[in-house]
C-alpha cells in the first residue's frame, strides 16, 4: 500500500464517490499489442517445469516457457495433430536394443538466460524428476511428471549432440512420453542454488515466450522470445498476459468489458450474448471424451450386454443441444478423423435394443451407482449433463444413483481404483486422449490395473492384451497404426465405456485478434496471434 500523504484524503473521498465524478481515464501511451487470456484454472499454473492445473497449465504456461524433446504440431486446425521435432531434431530406436532410444539434439538453442542447451542439460533434467539423490531432485516436479517417466530407466550421453534413453520395457510409443517432459535451465537453477521457489519467479526455458513478471494468484506476463529457434513461431504480439478466472460468468464479463481479449470455455448460455457483441467464437474437435469408466470386477457392468444397453440408451443429440452445440456426439473413445479411428461399432440411440439387452442380461431394474463431480477440468457441465444421463438411462430400465463429490475427491476415486471403491459401478471422468498410449492402451492394459495405473476397473481381455503387446513391440509406424485401429475397434465392440460427448472446446476472442488457429489438440499455439490497435 502506498503511504498515506496529503492527497490521501482527497483520493479517498474521490474513490468513495467515484461514480458521481466524471474522471477521465488517462490516455494510453504505450501502443503495445497484448493478448490477455482468461484461463479456467483457479490459479496460475506452476512455472518450475511441468505445470499443474492439468493440460491447461501445459497449454498456456508449460509449452510457452519451455520445450520438450518432442513437441506437438499445433499449426493446423483441419487434421489431428501429432508430435514433431522439438529440442530433439530426430529420434530412433536402437535397432539392436528396442529398449534404447537415441535422441539427436537441436544445435544452437539458447536458454532464456543465455546459456547454451546441451546434452548434459537433458540428463540433468531427467535426473531432476527421477533421481532422488541428485541435488536438483524436486519432489513436486517428480509428482507432476511421474506418469510420463514410469517406463524410464536410465539416460546417457552418446556425444555432445546425442543422448540415449533406456526404458524398462520395450515401448514403441515412448517418444510421446518425452513430449510431456519439459526442460528447464540448469544454468538458472544452479545460479539460484536449487531454490525452486525462487526459480518459480525467475524461470528460464527455451520456449517461444520469456517470463516477464508474475503477481501471485493473479497474473503471469510473458514476452515473446525473439531468438526462438523456430523463427516461424516467434510471437506476433508484444505481450501475453495469463489470468486465472475459474468462474465462467466472470470470464464472460471480463471479455465483454474489454479486460481480456481471449477467453477459454465460455458458458454455452453466454455465447449468443458474446456473438452479439461481435466476439469470435472458435471451436474444434480435439481428443477429449466425456465417458463413464466402468467397473469390471463386480456389479452389472461386468456384463457386456448391460454396457451395450447403456450405450444404446443415450440420445446424444440432446447433450449437444444442452451444450448449445458446443459438443459432438461421442460413439467411440476417439473422435472421428483420428488416424486410428477405423470402423468402430456405432451405438446409435435405440431404446428398444437397450431394453432387450437389459432383459437378456436379467438386470431389471438395473441398479447402478455412478460417481460424478460438481466441476473440474474437462468435466464440461457435469451436473446438468449427468442429470440428463440419469433420466435417459432410467427410461430403458436402469436405476441410477449418483455419488456427487468435488473434483479432488473424484480424482481420488479415479486414482484408488475399483479395489477401494468396489460399490461404484462407474465414474464420470473426462479424458485427454492425446497419444495412443494414454488414450487406448492404459485403460485396458493389465500392467495398468489400478491403483498402479490408469486401468481403473481392472479390465482384462486376452485378445486385447495380446494386441497391446504387439503394438508396444512394433516399431514400424505403419503396421502399428493398423494394430491401433484394430484396438480402437475392439474396445468399442467390448463397450469399454459409456461414451457420451466430445467437447468442442469453445473459445471466445475479441474481434481485434487475428491469426489464431485452433489445433485439434489440448494444447494451442498462441504465437501467430496479432492484435489490432
Amino acid at each position, binding site marked *: *500500500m*502506498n503511504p498515506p500523504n496529503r*492527497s490521501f484524503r482527497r*483520493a*479517498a473521498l*474521490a*474513490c*468513495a464517490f*467515484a*461514480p458521481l465524478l466524471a*474522471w*477521465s*481515464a*488517462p490516455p494510453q501511451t504505450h501502443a503495445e499489442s497484448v493478448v490477455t487470456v482468461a484461463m479456467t484454472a*483457479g*490459479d496460475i499454473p*506452476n512455472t*518450475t517445469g511441468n505445470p*499443474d492445473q492439468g493440460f491447461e497449465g501445459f497449454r498456456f504456461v508449460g509449452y510457452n516457457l519451455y520445450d520438450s524433446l518432442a513437441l506437438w504440431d499445433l499449426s493446423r486446425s483441419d487434421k489431428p495433430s501429432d508430435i514433431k521435432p522439438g529440442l530433439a531434431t530426430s529420434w530412433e530406436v536402437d535397432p539392436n536394443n528396442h529398449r534404447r532410444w537415441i535422441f539427436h539434439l537441436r544445435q544452437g538453442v539458447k536458454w532464456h538466460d543465455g546459456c547454451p542447451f546441451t546434452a548434459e542439460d537433458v540428463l540433468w533434467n531427467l535426473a531432476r524428476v527421477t533421481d532422488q539423490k541428485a541435488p536438483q531432485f524436486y*519432489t*513436486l516436479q*517428480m*509428482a*507432476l511428471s*511421474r*506418469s510420463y517417466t*514410469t517406463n524410464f530407466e536410465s539416460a546417457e550421453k552418446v556425444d555432445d549432440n546425442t543422448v540415449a534413453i533406456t526404458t524398462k520395457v520395450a515401448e514403441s510409443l515412448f517418444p510421446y512420453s518425452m513430449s510431456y517432459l519439459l526442460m528447464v535451465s540448469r544454468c538458472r537453477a544452479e545460479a539460484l542454488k536449487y531454490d*525452486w*521457489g525462487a526459480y*518459480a519467479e525467475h524461470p528460464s526455458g527455451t520456449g517461444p515466450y520469456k517470463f516477464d*513478471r508474475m*503477481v*501471485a*494468484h*493473479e*497474473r503471469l506476463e510473458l514476452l515473446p522470445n525473439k531468438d526462438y529457434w523456430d523463427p516461424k513461431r516467434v510471437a506476433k504480439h508484444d505481450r501475453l498476459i495469463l*489470468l486465472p*478466472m475459474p*468462474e465462467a*460468468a*466472470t470470464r464472460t*464479463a*471480463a471479455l*465483454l*468489458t*474489454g*479486460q481480456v481479449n481471449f477467453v477459454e470455455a465460455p458458458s454455452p448460455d453466454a455465447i449468443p450474448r458474446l456473438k452479439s457483441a461481435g466476439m469470435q467464437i472458435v471451436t474444434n474437435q480435439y481428443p477429449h471424451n466425456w465417458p463413464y469408466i466402468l467397473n469390471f470386477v463386480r456389479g452389472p457392468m461386468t456384463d457386456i450386454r448391460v454396457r451395450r444397453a447403456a450405450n444404446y440408451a443415450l440420445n446424444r443429440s440432446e447433450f449437444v443441444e444442452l451444450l448449445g452445440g458446443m459438443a459432438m456426439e461421442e460413439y467411440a473413445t476417439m473422435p472421428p478423423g483420428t488416424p486410428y479411428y477405423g470402423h468402430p461399432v456405432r451405438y446409435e440411440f435405440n431404446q428398444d435394443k437397450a431394453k432387450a439387452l437389459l432383459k437378456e442380461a436379467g438386470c431389471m431394474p438395473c441398479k447402478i451407482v455412478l460417481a460424478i463431480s460438481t466441476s473440474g477440468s474437462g468435466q464440461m457441465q457435469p451436473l446438468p449433463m449427468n442429470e440428463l444421463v440419469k433420466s435417459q438411462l432410467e427410461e430403458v430400465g436402469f436405476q441410477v444413483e449418483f455419488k456427487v463429490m*468435488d473434483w*479432488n*475427491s473424484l*480424482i*481420488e476415486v*479415479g*486414482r484408488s481404483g475399483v479395489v477401494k471403491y468396489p460399490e461404484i459401478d462407474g465414474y464420470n471422468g473426462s479424458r485427454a486422449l492425446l497419444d495412443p498410449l494414454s488414450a487406448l492402451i492404459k485403460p485396458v492394459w493389465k500392467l495398468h490395473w489400478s*491403483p*498402479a*495405473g*490408469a486401468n481403473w476397473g481392472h479390465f482384462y481381455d486376452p485378445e486385447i492384451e495380446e494386441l497391446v503387446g504387439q503394438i508396444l513391440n512394433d516399431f514400424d509406424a505403419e503396421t502399428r497404426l493398423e494394430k491401433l485401429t484394430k484396438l480402437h475397434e475392439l474396445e468399442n465392440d467390448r463397450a469399454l465405456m459409456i461414451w457420451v460427448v466430445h467437447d468442442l472446446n469453445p473459445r471466445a476472442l475479441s474481434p481485434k485478434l487475428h491469426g489464431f488457429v485452433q489445433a485439434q489438440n489440448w494444447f494451442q499455439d498462441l504465437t501467430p496471434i496479432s492484435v489490432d490497435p
Partner: protein
Amino acid sequence: MLGYIGRRILFAIPIAFGVSVVCFSLVYLAPGDPLQTILPSDATAEMVAQIKQAYGLDRPLPVQFLLWLGHVLTGDFGMSISTRRPVILEVTGALSNTFMLTSFAVPLAFIVGYTMGAIAGCFPGRAIDRVVTGASVVGVSLPNYWLGIVLVIVFAVELMALPATGMGPKGSAEFSFFRWSDAQYLVQPVVTLSMIPVGIISRTTRAAVSEVLNQDFVTTLRAKGLGEFAVIRHVLKNSAPQVLAVMGLQFGYLMGGSILVETVFTWPGSGFMLSKAIINRDIPVLQGTILFLAMIFVATNLVVDLLQSVIDPRIRRS
C-alpha cells in the same frame, strides 16, 4: 489507565492461544487426504508417504501443533502446498488487498450510515425516519453477493462504465488508488461491501441518537434556551463513542467477511484466497489466513475497547 490497558492485553493472550488451537484443529476436521491435489492420478502409496514426510504430515497431531505454533511465533507459517510460496507472503499480500477494500468501505459506510442514522434519530416517527429505517433494514437483509452480480451486469457489462473483475489493469502489485485507471476497480466491490455496515451503522446511530435525545441533559439544554441546531450537535457528540465502537467492529468483520464479495469480483484478497485454499485443500494457507484474520479481529476488538475506555472512563469499571 495503564493498568487497565495491561490487563486488557493480558486478557487477549489466552484468547489468541485458543484461536490458534481452533485454527490448527479446524483443518483436521476435513475428510480426505490434504495432499490429493498435488499428487498425480496414479501416485503409488510409497510416493504418497514420501511426500507426506516432506511436508511433515506424518507426525502425531499434538506434535504437529506445537511445531506449527513454534514456527508461527517466529513468523514462519510454512509453505503453501499448491504454490510452494511462503504462506506469510501469500497471506500478507492478500490481506493488504482486502485492507484496501475495507479501508474504503468502512469510512464510506460510516459517512452514509451515520448521516442516515442521525437524520432518522433526530426526527423520530417522521416520514424521513421511516424511509431511513426501511433503507437500513434493506441493507442488512440484502444478500450482498447478489447485489454485486447485479452491479457487474448493469455498470460493467451493459453501461461499460466500470471494470467487471480483478484489481487494476496491471494486477494488485502495481495498484495505486491515485490513478483512476486503477481506482475504478475499487468502486463496485467497495459499494457492495459497505451495504451491510451502512445498515448496521445507521440503525445503531438512530438508536444512540434517539436515546441521547431522551436524556435529561437535552431537556436541560433546551430549557437553557439553546438553539435546536446546537442541541443536535451535543446529541451527536454524545452518541459518537457508541457508533465509533460499532464502526471499529465492522472493520474487523469486513476483513474476515469479504469472501463473498471478493468471489464475485475476483478481488485477490484474503477471502478469495481462503476459498481457493479450501478448494485446493491447501492446509498451511488455510491455517495462516484464518489465524491472521482472527488475530486482526481480536486486535480490533482490543483497540476499540481501549479507545472506548479513553473516551468514556466509566467503561473501565465493568
